């Protein structure tokens, strides 16, 4: 393959990167506008940020979002790890494939369908729409992601490790806590992290199952944006952009940590 990039291709890539980032920086720049429109930059001010931090309603919503994200990531990681073990330990190939297909249903389903079907489910079950319905649905749609993060780690674990542990007299519980769990820890972390970001980012499912009293950040942004431009949202998006960058850095380190350990195993 010729490694040279022509100036034309460089230009093409530059245009793509410009298009991808321009809207984001556009939002961030106008968050410092002292005026109140997104087209006329009057002067620099931090007024919108001040307003943002004084808005207690919004701060409560942020808190709600974070609580739901952490709780749902925690529960979905626990159930997801158990699920990955169940799939891994399934004796028959048929069972394994069926479980895996069922696992992936919620990953490929469009959010509207997940949201609508959960809305029916909660209404039929008599669960009041609000915090618990949102938390339950976030746990539900995060579980398959955790499974998919943990399963490859289980696959690459050599079965001889478990045989060796058993030969040396380890009980099932010891095998689980001293051999299997430490080995798949990177996968568990990755799963927890992905569950966290999915929950923080979700709009459509939450929109369906949230009642009147409870709101998450995405739902709030949607209802604000439907009312039109308000530079509050710009200030919020600038902060969220910084937060996203932080998440990407964390994600980068998690994946970097995963790689060497995986390679190390193959060498043995």
């Amino acid at each position, binding site marked *: *393959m010729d*490694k040279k*990039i022509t100036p034309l*291709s460089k230009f*093409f*890539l530059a245009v*793509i*990167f410009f298009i*991808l*980032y321009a*809207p*984001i920086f*556009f*939002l961030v720049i106008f968050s410092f506008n002292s005026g109140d429109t*997104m*087209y*006329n930059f009057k002067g620099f001010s931090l007024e919108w940020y001040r307003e943002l931090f004084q808005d207690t309603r919004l701060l409560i919503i942020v808190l709600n979002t974070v609580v739901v994200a952490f709780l749902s990531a925690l529960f979905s990681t626990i159930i997801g790890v*158990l*699920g990955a*073990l*169940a799939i891994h330990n399934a004796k028959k190939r048929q069972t394994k*494939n069926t479980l895996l297909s*069922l696992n992936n249903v*919620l990953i*490929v*389903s*469009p*959010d*509207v*369908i*997940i949201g*609508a*079907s*959960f*809305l*029916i*489910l909660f209404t039929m079950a008599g669960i009041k729409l609000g915090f618990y319905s949102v938390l339950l649905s976030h746990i*539900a749609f995060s*579980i398959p992601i955790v499974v998919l993060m943990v399963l490859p780690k289980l696959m690459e674990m050599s079965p001889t490790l478990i045989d060796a542990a058993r030969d040396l007299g380890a009980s099932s519980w010891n095998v689980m806590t001293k051999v299997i769990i430490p080995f798949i820890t990177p996968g568990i972390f990755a799963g927890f992290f992905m569950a966290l*970001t999915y929950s923080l*980012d979700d709009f*459509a499912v939450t*929109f*369906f199952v949230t009642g009147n009293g409870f709101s998450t*950040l*995405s739902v709030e*942004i*949607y209802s604000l*944006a*439907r009312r*039109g*431009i308000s530079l509050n*949202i710009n200030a919020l*998006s600038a902060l*969220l*952009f910084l937060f*996203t*960058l932080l*998440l*990407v850095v964390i994600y980068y380190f998690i994946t970097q940590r995963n790689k060497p350990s995986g390679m190390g195993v193959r060498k043995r």
Partner: protein
Amino acid sequence: MENKLTRSLYRIPYLLWILLFVIVPILLVLYYSFFDIEGNFSFINYQKFFTPVYLKMTISSFWYAFLITAISLLISYPTAYLLTKTRHKQLWLLLIIVPSWINLLLKAYAFIGIFGTYGAANSFLKMIGIGSRQILFTDFSFVFVSVYIFIPFMILPIFNALDELNPTLLDAASDLGASKWTTFRRIIFPLTIDGVKSGCQVVFIPALSLFMLTRLIAGNRVITLGTSIEQHFLVTQDWGMGSTIAVFLIIIMVLIMLVTGTRKRGV
């Protein structure tokens, strides 16, 4: 040694999840699709779905999803190809992925500002002498914003497929006298078709169903299957009709998955 029963107890939470949140919801959607707005059992929703109003909506939703997928592919393939040739390709790829992590609603909101009557796009059009136009709340803005949002998701699988391509194959092709176009058509594209397929899959299905984009960007000009489901469930409260459209969306989804094939060979 513990008996078999207690050793399989750990499966219960996961299997319960599959039952309650995977199987039951799909069955409930199917069940509700047989009830009209008054709660009587009937096939009226299916009859309604095959009237011109709903068929037209389905076809236009398909058409938009197709347009969005095609344009995303046309932009993403060359981008992914050029990215594999850059020196720090993993870093550049990361920079492509970062925007996809940013909340979708914020990106849509940015375009409300950019495409608005006095927005950046219109000032640019005025500057080059075209004059201001209505951009927001048109089908153009809907397609543009959707493509903008989906590009990273399309680039990623194509990039991975191109990255796995064995470069000696390309050397062999050029040694045997193949032109660049022949090499692309006969070697590069066929070997990366799996990446293209999974890219199309992750774009097409959401393009049929993202209702917030049509609401925020397209006004009421574009109604996709997703918008229609949301409308029936949350606005008109006609859950039966909403479920019927959802049933069709599920069927379409399964068909697309079958066409674009299973990405991973066995587990």
